[in-house]
């Protein structure tokens, strides 16, 4: 990317950011810019109103919803293996699986829905994030604003159990017919809960509890990296 293009896109991002802060900060929205992307966190009660404006207002014109997805923030920033000092024992690859404590996070910062918007007219993108209640994960559906949100919301419902009120047809989409649970939640085991096989005696396919042992081959570790720490201090807005 040459310098002229870079500064132009930076300028566009700054204008967008300023516009968003100007317009929506009073409604409790938090606008941040990092890595050349603008993110706005919206309180969920304002989601529909703000999203409609973002689509229709000449200053934004985010006419296309590129993506919508759920996120489960349980266990964010937790290591599976903490090695602050030298230890005699290595990481146990077998059974000592790190269990994520899903109640560690507050009710309102476990699940979020993230929308990626695109404005073809202004050639810019925007990320919206809205946190939902962990006990009653319900958020307004944006299908009425962007028709393309239909399947993305069904997917978020299927995988995370986030409900979208006003969605015309909120069914499971990716998992099996009759599947129980929301598999992408952090407390759902990677191996699943049931396995399926053909049973010759009963002459049909049966489901039974999974027999795979949970294994972690490479532990999740977090390293304090000085290169990134100093970067963040020098230039918090844009990389």
């Amino acid at each position, binding site marked *: 990317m040459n310098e002229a293009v870079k500064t132009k896109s930076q300028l566009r991002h700054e204008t967008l950011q300023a516009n968003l802060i100007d317009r929506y900060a009073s409604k409790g929205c938090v606008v941040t810019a990092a890595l050349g992307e603008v993110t706005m966190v919206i309180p969920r009660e304002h989601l529909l109103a703000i999203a409609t404006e973002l689509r229709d207002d000449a200053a934004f014109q985010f006419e296309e919803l590129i993506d919508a997805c759920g996120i489960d923030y349980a266990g*964010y920033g937790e290591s599976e293996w903490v090695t602050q000092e030298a230890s005699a024992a290595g990481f146990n690859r077998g059974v000592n699986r790190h269990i994520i404590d899903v109640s560690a996070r507050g009710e309102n910062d476990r699940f979020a829905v*993230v929308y990626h918007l695109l404005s073809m007219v202004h050639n810019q993108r925007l990320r919206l994030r809205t946190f939902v209640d962990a006990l009653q994960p319900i958020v307004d559906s944006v299908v009425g604003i962007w028709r393309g949100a239909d399947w993305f919301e069904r997917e978020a419902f299927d995988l995370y159990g986030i409900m979208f009120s006003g969605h015309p047809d909120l069914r499971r989409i*990716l998992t099996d017919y009759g599947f129980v649970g929301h598999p992408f939640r952090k407390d759902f085991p990677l191996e699943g809960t049931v396995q399926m096989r053909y049973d010759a005696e009963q002459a049909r396919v049966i489901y039974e509890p999974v027999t795979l042992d949970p294994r972690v081959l490479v532990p999740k570790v977090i390293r304090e990296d000085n290169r990134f720490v100093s970067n963040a201090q020098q230039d918090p807005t844009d990389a």
Partner: protein
Amino acid sequence: MPEIRNYTLNFGPQHPAAHGVLRLVLEMDGEVIERADPHIGLLHRATEKLAESKPYNQTIPYMDRLDYVSMMCSEHGYVMAIEKLLGVEVPLRAKYIRTLFDEITRILNHLMWLGTHALDVGAMTVFLYAFREREDLMDCYEAVSGARMHAAYYRVGGVYRDLPDVMPRYANNQFRSDADIARKNETRQGSLLDFIDDFANRFPGLVDEYETLLTDNRIWKQRTVGIGVVTPERARQLSFTGPMVRGSGLAWDLRKKQPYAAYNRVDFDIPVGVNGDCYDRYLVRIEELRQSTRIIKQCVQWLRENPGPVIVQDHKISPPARDYMKGDMESLIHHFKLFTEGYCPPAGEAYAAVEAPKGEFGCYVVSDGSNKPFRLKIRAPGFAHLAAMDEMVKGHMLADVVAVIGTMDVVFGEIDR
């Protein structure tokens, strides 16, 4: 008067025109579609969940298996997202190699699409022609990565290794005559770049060949003109990208609008359609084949003249060369840490998108500062396109459903993930 009721038809998941494992429940009034309800997920492998349990690099091969006819483009989207998080600048030669292979991938994908789309609609020959050329391109994949399809060639910070100086040749064998083998080896005497250059020289003629079979073909036009019309407004509403949105007349192409890799250094045009029907999308993709050839030729020329590193020399991200590792303690440590633990990008989130052959392929990566992605969301173009199935086929005949599935260029690896 007899009672007339709609009836329901199950299309797939084993139907040959369902392009894999699409189960389509069609509500029909006679032969007219009243409602189409695609059931997907039969190929769901939870790629995103698997990615959360592995270091970043180990997910690259999963990307090949998403859209298994445009492998390297998916890899590209994924590594770009991580590079954004890490703040890595990729060497220029690697950018050109990526551009070259993205375009080879685009041709691979469009040939597959062209062959199967035409086959579904009733033209057999195009399929055979298209697969003949795919063979050469998969040989390029093999020469550069060792695998014909699932290459895992792109790495964070560049590509795995430089282009080979020698194009592998066929050995004489008992199944083919020596003369036949010699003819096949004619173009393989030089380097990989020579082979690609030769391909790029003869490919436009081959595209003409496909066009003589289809473009003015009466049956082809009867089956595609005016079928599955999408207006530009609806295309944006329905989250369309790629040829699906260009077929409707919107000149939107990430390679031009938000250039990545070396796309701002090469010369090419974006074809757009007018009517937004299956035929226009066909014309758009055919023209993309020609434009890809143009890009390939420019990349080949640049790559010939400009040797250089193909991956960043930061050994916190890319492993040191094998021979350094044998003699140098620090390289050994880097190597060990990279392959047992990987690298830890700073906490944050990044979305990177590439113009994959099917549309915008994006990866949204959330990092919590650990060596594994906290959340990876794959934005597959086919997912959004297939979601519009109901709208596109409503009121059409049953046979047109096949044409619409063809024009969407659906591949279930990426839709089901």
